[in-house]
């Protein structure tokens, strides 16, 4: 019968499948065994080698050259034989470099200089350069980061090509490294950045800047007018964080930007650099704004509003959105000495939700 024929074939097919599966299982189990073996061996080495690296680095940190030592002679720190023998091993070198970089991030002064000395003495910069020239993206990024941490400014031109690279991670590392090299001047790349700069990326840049000694920003007026919205946002954060009063007028201009987020950030930033016109400017744009931005405006008014602005804010108490009522009441509460009275005397003060909002504000919850 036809089906009999199929069954036989089917059976053979199944048996073949079974054999294939079994072979694969054995193959995979061997992979697992081998991988485990390698990983466990590595781990054993990891702790020992990390100790070793830490010891050398600690000694190097507190190294004091002899008074009559020749400072041009770089082979001055004593390296144990064991370490010298292990350096060609890539894994050891990675551990050692990581520990050295970690220490460098934590220390300045003569200790930091000593770490530079150690780094150069062991010729680790050759390996950093090798990483930059590698094909794998994470090695490139590692190499760039290393050059930055060790402040190897002479390789600036090697890092520059990566500033507008298509892969985000490499762009970030390159930009951060330029900041380390050139300080605030390193932000030049913002003039020509075509890729959007993510919020995360901006956070990293701001952190990097926070580590640098304060300096002048040249270029913010360009960046505030950039076509790249993320550059505008970043510039607004700079204005805010560093209290750059000279850009007040430009911020007011940004209140009519088409991107809601930019308008929002401009509102947030302007409360750090207020002048006597800020409150009026904020109230002017209020009617046409989105709900979120209206809340930002009321929050900003907390800082900049005075008695003249009170009637406007009181009118916000009549808005049907509870969020607005809450924000307006909070703002009035912060306008001393009489702002809060206007909330208490509002016709709806005994109704929901104002009655609860008032209780909240009165109990002064942070």
């Amino acid at each position, binding site marked *: 019968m036809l089906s009999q024929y199929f069954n036989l074939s089917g059976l053979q097919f199944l048996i073949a499948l079974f054999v294939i599966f079994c072979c694969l299982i054995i193959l995979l189990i061997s992979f697992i065994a081998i991988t485990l073996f390698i990983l466990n061996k590595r781990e054993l080495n990891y702790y020992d080698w*990390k100790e070793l690296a*830490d*010891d050398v*680095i*600690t000694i190097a*940190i*507190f190294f004091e050259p002899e008074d009559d030592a020749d400072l041009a002679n770089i082979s001055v720190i004593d390296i144990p034989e064991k370490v010298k023998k292990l350096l060609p091993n890539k894994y050891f070198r990675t551990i050692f470099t990581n*520990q050295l970089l*970690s*220490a460098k*991030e*934590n*220390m*300045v*002064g*003569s*200790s*930091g200089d000593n770490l530079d000395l150690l780094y150069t003495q062991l010729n680790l910069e050759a390996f950093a350069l090798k990483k930059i020239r590698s094909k794998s993206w994470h090695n490139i990024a590692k190499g760039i980061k290393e050059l930055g941490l060790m402040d190897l400014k002479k390789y600036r031109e090697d890092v520059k090509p990566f500033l507008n690279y298509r892969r985000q991670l490499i762009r970030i590392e390159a930009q951060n490294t330029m900041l380390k090299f050139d300080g605030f001047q390193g932000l030049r790349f913002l003039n020509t950045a075509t890729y959007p700069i993510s919020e995360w990326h901006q956070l990293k840049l701001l952190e990097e800047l*926070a*580590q640098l000694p304060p300096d002048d920003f040249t270029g913010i007026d360009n960046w505030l007018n950039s076509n790249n919205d993320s550059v505008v946002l970043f510039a607004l954060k700079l204005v805010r964080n560093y209290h750059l009063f000279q850009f007040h007028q430009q911020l007011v201009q940004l209140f009519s930007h088409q991107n809601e987020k930019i308008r929002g950030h401009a509102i947030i930033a302007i409360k750090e650099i207020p002048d006597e016109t800020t409150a009026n400017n904020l109230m002017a744009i209020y009617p046409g704004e989105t709900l979120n931005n209206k809340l930002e405006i009321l929050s900003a008014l907390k800082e900049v509003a005075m008695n003249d602005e009170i009637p406007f804010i009181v009118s916000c108490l009549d808005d049907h959105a509870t969020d607005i009522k809450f924000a307006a009441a909070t703002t009035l509460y912060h306008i001393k000495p009489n702002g809060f009275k206007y909330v208490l005397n509002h016709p709806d003060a005994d109704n929901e939700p104002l009655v609860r909002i008032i209780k909240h504000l009165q109990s002064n919850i942070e």
Partner: protein
Amino acid sequence: MRILIAEDDQLMLKTLEFRLKRDGHEVFLSRDGQEAMKMINTQELDLVISDIMMPYSSGLELIGFIKQKFNNTVKTIILSGMGQENVILEAFRLGATDFITKPFSPNELSMRINRLALSN
């Protein structure tokens, strides 16, 4: 002085121990807030150097606890990468004796500690 270091970075711990021992102090180590608390309760200490971001608890909590229990007999120094104004103010409000931001100079730290030792 008898000094306790609370820091979760192994290398930092080692470095500080090395330097402080060389300066002639007796050094105790702890890798997180809990270990530190234990040490504080069992050992007689003159100074606690602590990071802020550690597993299990914040260095600031540690500072608050020490100030509450020992008032000024046990001095405290915060050694942290968190250098924002609000953090520094909070640390002093909680009773820290000094605040050093990372990256720092071990020489500077050593000087400040020696000054503290002299003022005892």
